[in-house]
């Protein structure tokens, strides 16, 4: 299995406090991985760094062997935890935009998904509800045939039906040549979909493994394991 992401000694410091602390992590191809941890553990920082929005204070991060830059960005599809599209734009304009810049963008797939959701491509973003805007963003992100998908808290603050839709989209979109990294603190909702998990605490990886192996060996769900592991840590 190819290594899709490799972080060595990755550190990010903001005024003394490290958001990421000498973090080492390898993600392999064709896996759906959960980046799990409480708020402030460094999940979003790590994902933003992989997306190219933050620069590390120390350490290295490579995506499919490439340093973070235009080459890595072409392979990474990033879904942020907030809507980032200009509200003036129409949905079709966003489809044009993605098609222009990303060679791996599958426009027909995106249009299919939008139709299935009942979203009018001619609508301006500002006329859509917040939930619908988020769905548009999800559709665009998942319609790319990327090597690495970075989903930052995709189901936080979302109703159960929408959550099901998001998880189904992730499953339906699965490709053995791609990797999906989902950061969340809502573990029980997501653990059915995960191959592997990574527990993050204060910018460090404190535990990782395969989801089913945990269930087999300990008879616990990931959610239960998480509570157990994080119960005894300070600031949790």
């Amino acid at each position, binding site marked *: 299995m190819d290594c899709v992401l490799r972080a060595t000694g990755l550190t990010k410091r903001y005024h003394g406090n490290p958001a990421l602390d000498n973090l080492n992590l390898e993600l392999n191809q*064709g*896996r*759906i991985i959960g980046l799990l941890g409480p708020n402030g553990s460094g999940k979003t920082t790590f994902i933003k760094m992989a997306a190219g929005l933050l620069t590390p204070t120390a350490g290295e991060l490579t995506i499919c062997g490439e340093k973070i830059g235009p080459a890595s960005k072409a392979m990474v599809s990033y879904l942020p935890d907030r809507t980032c599209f200009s509200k003036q734009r129409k949905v079709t304009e966003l489809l044009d935009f993605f098609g222009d810049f990303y060679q791996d963008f599958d426009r027909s797939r995106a249009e299919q998904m939008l139709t299935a959701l009942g979203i009018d491509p001619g609508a301006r973003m500002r006329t859509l509800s917040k939930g619908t805007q988020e769905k548009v963003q999800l559709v665009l992100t998942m319609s790319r045939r990327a090597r690495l998908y970075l989903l930052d808290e995709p189901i936080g603050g979302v109703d159960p039906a929408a959550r*099901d839709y998001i*998880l*189904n989209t992730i*499953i*339906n979109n*699965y490709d053995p040549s791609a990797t999906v990294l989902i950061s969340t603190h809502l573990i*029980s909702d997501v*653990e*059915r*979909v*995960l*191959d592997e998990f990574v527990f993050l605490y204060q910018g460090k990886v404190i535990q990782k493994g395969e*989801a*089913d*192996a945990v*269930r*087999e060996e300990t*008879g*616990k*769900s*990931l*959610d*239960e394991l998480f509570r157990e592991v994080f119960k005894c840590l300070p600031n949790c």
Partner: protein
Amino acid sequence: MNWKFAGDRPLYQQIMALIRGAILRGELPPGGKIPSVRDLAAEAQVNPNTMQRAMTELEREGLLVSGGTSGRTITEDSEILEEMRDGALRELAQECAEKFMVFGITPTQAAQLLLNLEKEREEM
């Protein structure tokens, strides 16, 4: 199919149990085709790798037969089906016995309870 999972046992094993159950109930008839891993994973809302693992295991057991590119079918080998049925029933009986044991009821007493239940049902 009702894909309900508990979080504390390996998902792939639970999937296998659910599929065995469906075959026993006749929902998935012997010789019948099974949807692709992708479709099943989407239906069950689980990771395709997990579904793949379950399918591979069932194939190894002989319960599923790989048809190459045309997908998987359920075996028509009656011996394997019998074996699976027996195995599933044994497991169920074991579970029941353990549950009754919690209340201090022996298997013989449990059998009597079940017979009484059946009589009541017939009288209704």
